[in-house]
């Protein structure tokens, strides 16, 4: 079983991200359970979405406290809020941020990747929705599934211009992490 926790602000598409991530696993024949946790029901409020995935149907219904992977859709959440709480010893975090984004000190086995996902999204999609770029980065950083699997899920869930933009965003997020790891 793998557990993924997404940190975002309401309106940034965390549920879409969880749904899309779950869908990638679904297409691979796995059993994902994607679910949100709303805080105050208003735009901009910190919220979580989660994906729990296994090779058999997931029965556990609690939130995720010890994630294998973290997706952080807004670097301002790193201030005054411990997004890294409970991250596994060998856990991986993918953060939408810039060179200036400060991340907490990691444990020896943990890894973090900062991707300019919103920047990529503005160029590819035309809106600051970095979710598919983050997922591209997730794919490269974790090897949970191939880029083709992610692109297949995006192709089945988006149409027209949004499809083109999101495919490009996912590829750029993927490349960003791949190139970074080579350095």
């Amino acid at each position, binding site marked *: 079983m793998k557990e993924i926790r997404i940190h975002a602000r309401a309106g940034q598409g965390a*549920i879409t991200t*969880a*749904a899309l991530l*779950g*869908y990638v696993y*679904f297409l691979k024949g796995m*059993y*994902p*359970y*994607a*679910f*949100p*946790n*709303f805080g105050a*029901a208003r735009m901009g409020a910190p919220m979580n979405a989660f994906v729990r995935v296994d090779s058999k*149907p*997931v*029965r*556990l*219904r*609690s*939130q995720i*406290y010890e994630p294998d992977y973290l997706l952080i859709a807004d670097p301002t959440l790193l201030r005054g809020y411990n997004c890294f709480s409970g991250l596994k010893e060998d856990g991986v975090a993918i953060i939408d941020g810039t060179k200036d984004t400060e991340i907490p000190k990691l444990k020896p086995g943990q890894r973090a990747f900062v991707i300019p996902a919103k920047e990529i999204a503005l160029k590819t999609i035309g809106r600051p929705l970095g979710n598919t770029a983050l997922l591209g980065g997730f794919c490269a950083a974790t090897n949970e599934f191939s880029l083709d699997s992610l692109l297949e899920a995006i192709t089945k869930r988006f149409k027209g211009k949004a499809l083109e933009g999101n495919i490009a965003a996912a590829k750029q997020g993927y490349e960003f992490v791949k190139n970074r790891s080579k350095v």
Partner: protein
Amino acid sequence: MKEFLEGSLAVAEAIRLCKPGVISAYPITPQTHIVEELAQLVANGKLGSQFVNVESEHSAASVVLGASAAGVRAYTATSSQGLFYMAEVVFNIAGLRLPIVMTCAARAISAPINIWNDHQDVVSLRDSGWIQLHAEDIQEAVDMHFMAYRLAEDKSIMLPVIVSMDGFILTHGIETVDIPSQEQVDKFLPSYKPLYKLDPEDPITIGPLVDPDYYMETRFAIQKTMEQVLDFIPKVTQDFAKVTGRAYNGLIEEYRTKDAERVIVAMGSVCGTIKEVVDELRAKGKKVGLLKVTAFRPFPVKSIYGALKDIPKVAVIDRALSLGSFAPLEAEIKAVFSGKKKRPSVISSFVVGLGGRDITKDSIKEIFRMLTAKERSAEFIDLKPELLKEEFSDG
């Protein structure tokens, strides 16, 4: 076909396949996605139902009451305050023996206002005369709706059914769901043929004033029918299994209880979390199990007696209260064993997950730990003592 679907959309899909003549509902979190989707299906011509927009839940319930009385299959969905606003009509629907199916996205009740999941809304309507089924996962919630119509519309039953699915956890959760084909559904669920209906060509009166000479017999009739429902549910689930291959008991589910020394009794999605904990503790050699109650009304007294009579210690989980008394499910389970020789030596009761407080594996393990020789009643789990200081301090 297997799909990766949000619980609400999966239920909307199930309702589409049931082809109701009339749908009426008023949006309320976390039920909204169900009726939004149904409204869209109707608007896009994918569902031939009449979708009646209303200004309140009281009217939504009244519209489906009227539709059902006029002889068509009807559907509504609601949650929390919406269900309470409907309550007057909810009792009427059962009293009139109208086979309506309603989904309740189970949620806490105000005040203080809270949109998150517990069972206070649906459990509070236990005395209304509706059959009440509680789903553990999205697949079960979907399948219950087909079975609900079959049950409700059988001429020997003619009672409404409420399908309860945990708000957010199931309504907004997305998981793999097998949606049956229209052909399968049609094979299982014949079109609705009412016994009586309101028809200007052939007028009848339903729901007139009933004086003391007659009223008690109408209530007695529902009470007797509820007993028949307990025998009828297993027939419906067997027929459903023949068509879809998915087998349900329909009343209760016994999970690793056969040689168990300690068993938790619960309803709804928390049963999944309990199964995980049971497997973990079993792997360590602990003899624990789960009894899931699917049918809360009618209450399957005999099945529960059979399942628990040889279990030494039983913990009942409630996600609702009857403030000032035993917790609702606790009271029922204790009543099952009242005056019985064969019975658990301990029946303790725990209250957990009110207003959306997360129920973790640790919450469940704590309940198993506290299930000792000391009997407990409505013991709250996961309370925050720091929040109680002010309330109970002397100064």
